[in-house]
């Protein structure tokens, strides 16, 4: 097995939520005991619905948020011990919304060049050359160098964001829903680009997405999150072929492929997504689970390893897998 570039160990992150005017502050367990390893050269997809904690997890992996408990290691070193600059040189983000991820007051060249400037990696002339080179690589015409983001389309903006992430040649790029704000016709271009870059530069990618079709197309490995926990992970092919966790099964069932005549699938998940501020006891998925058992509402299931990955569900015992 390839070594882990980044390892997330039993990480928790709580937020104090101002309960509005009439309530005391409450604790939101955004990420609740997540362990995860990102291996060199892979595309690891984090899948889950909104509010499941995947963005919080990504921010912790970027070192933008300190975990409440547990630690994130980069090549065996806790990132708390790494200085911000060193960390930044190796891990870079691409965000979801290309409109808010680019400073509207800076030119494309300045945005892409910012990491170079901060890290003092090259002289001003070299910098320009490297910016242009990176722009070529992500398929941005050089004439955009002195242009402001508001003159670019969404796809072009996302290319700028990718160029900014790549210009200091990081090892790991964390893409938080990189295409969900884009139109289909543009989405495919960005996905193709990410795939090419990953191959050519030997990047490790973490791809956060709620679109399972995209995940299946892109990822080599998948981790499914539900209410702050990873309920299942495994390599893409086997996870899609035979999902273990009822939630994963439901997720896969609700993929709507453009194939007419199949009708809308019935997920049997019940009406409401649970409130992350007040998560259900035991297995947080139990109120919606079609296969819930009495034990599910009492004890939270532990992650169990099997030969293709892990699953956290009372339906399975290590021996069965």
């Amino acid at each position, binding site marked *: 097995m390839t070594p882990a570039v980044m390892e997330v160990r039993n990480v928790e992150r709580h937020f104090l939520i101002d309960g509005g005017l009439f309530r005391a502050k409450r604790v939101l367990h955004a990420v609740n005991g997540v362990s995860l390893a990102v291996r060199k050269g892979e595309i690891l997809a984090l899948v889950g*619905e909104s509010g499941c904690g995947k963005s919080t997890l990504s921010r912790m992996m970027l070192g933008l948020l300190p975990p409440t408990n547990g630690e994130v290691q980069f090549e065996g070193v806790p990132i708390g011990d790494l200085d911000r600059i060193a960390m930044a040189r190796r891990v870079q983000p691409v965000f979801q919304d290309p409109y808010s991820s680019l400073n509207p007051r800076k030119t494309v060249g300045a945005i892409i060049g910012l990491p170079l400037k901060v890290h003092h990696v090259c002289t001003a002339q070299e910098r320009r050359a490297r910016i242009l080179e990176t722009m070529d690589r992500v398929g941005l015409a050089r004439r955009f160098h002195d242009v402001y983001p508001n003159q670019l389309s969404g796809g072009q903006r996302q290319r700028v964001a990718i160029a900014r992430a790549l210009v200091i040649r990081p090892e790991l790029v964390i893409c938080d829903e990189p295409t969900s704000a884009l139109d289909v016709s543009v989405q*495919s271009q960005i996905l*193709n680009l990410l*795939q090419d870059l990953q191959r050519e530069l030997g990047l490790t990618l973490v791809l956060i997405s709620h679109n399972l079709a995209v995940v299946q197309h892109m990822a080599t490995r998948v981790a499914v999150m539900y209410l702050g926990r990873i309920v299942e992970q495994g390599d893409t092919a086997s996870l899609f072929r035979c999902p273990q966790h009822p939630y994963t099964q439901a997720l896969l069932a*609700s993929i709507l*492929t453009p194939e007419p005549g199949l009708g*809308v699938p019935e997920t049997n998940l019940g009406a409401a997504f649970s409130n992350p501020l007040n998560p259900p006891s035991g297995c947080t998925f139990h109120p919606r689970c079609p296969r819930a058992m009495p034990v599910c509402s009492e004890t939270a299931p532990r992650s169990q390893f099997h030969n293709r990955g892990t699953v956290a569900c009372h339906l399975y015992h290590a021996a069965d897998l």
Partner: protein
Amino acid sequence: MSTVLEVQGLVVRIPLTFGDLSPVRNVGFSVSTGETLCIVGESGCGKSLTSLAIMDLLPSRARRTANRISFDGVDLTAIRERDMADIRGNRMAMIFQEPMTSLNPAYTIGNQLEEAMLRHRKVARSAARERAVYLLEKVGITAAGQRLKQYPHQLSGGLRQRVMIAMGLMCGPKLLIADEPTTALDVTIQAEILHLLASLKREFDMAMILITHDLGVVARVADRVAVMYAGQVVETGTAKDVFSRPLHPYTQGLLRCVPIPGRTKPGEHLGSIPGLVPNLIGEMKGCSFRNRCLHASVECGAIDVTLQQIGPEISYRCILPVAVAAAYGLEATKA
């Protein structure tokens, strides 16, 4: 099966300082009882404005003209605002994309549900409440009686969208227009809501117009499809026809862009449509897709491309002959 709504030559213009913006240009379609029409297209193609134009809910600065908007025997282009208001929410209802903001935060769910009925029917409040409870249960909300006393902020997005649907159904409309009803929702909820809409349509024997950008949703829900690009309908047909044999290069391109589990090989390049949507300000000439089209020729810019009707249900806006177009489309779906 009777035609509930027929639209012909719908144009929406928004006057701007430097010329008129025409986000909807000469759009036409029809929908019948028991049928679901999906209008699909990317952002900015004019699909939402089309629906608002039918409801006469356009932003005040937008101007609507149409050759014909006939709803249930009434010519909507000719009636007064008062009469249109009598139709809205009564015989023709609409639900919107953002369930989080589409309900008034200041009033209870019950109040807002009942209001829709009290406005159009001479019924007692208690009757309206009964109907509200009935419909809330219908849309899968438990403890409906208590929910009536709750405020919108106390409900999750999925529940609010269900309330919106119930609100649309209060007066038993003939036509329900759903504008991206699931876009803001999570995937698992999306499936539930679509399921619900489909079954309600059957149960209440309505016509439904579903507006979406998601080809997956279209394929699963639609009886018929209208594909819009740059303010025009570029292709119509039954869902089966459009997805299995897309005729317009844009439809073909779109279908190529989406990874389909089981069909697209993981890791392989997806198809894409290069270039950008054209500017819709001022007069336009020629095919609006030509700058992004793989098959474009000089001719495409020179003449006004019209819809080719090649069957009772099928038409497309392209100068390519059917056989040629179909061939490209087959290639596309295979790829």
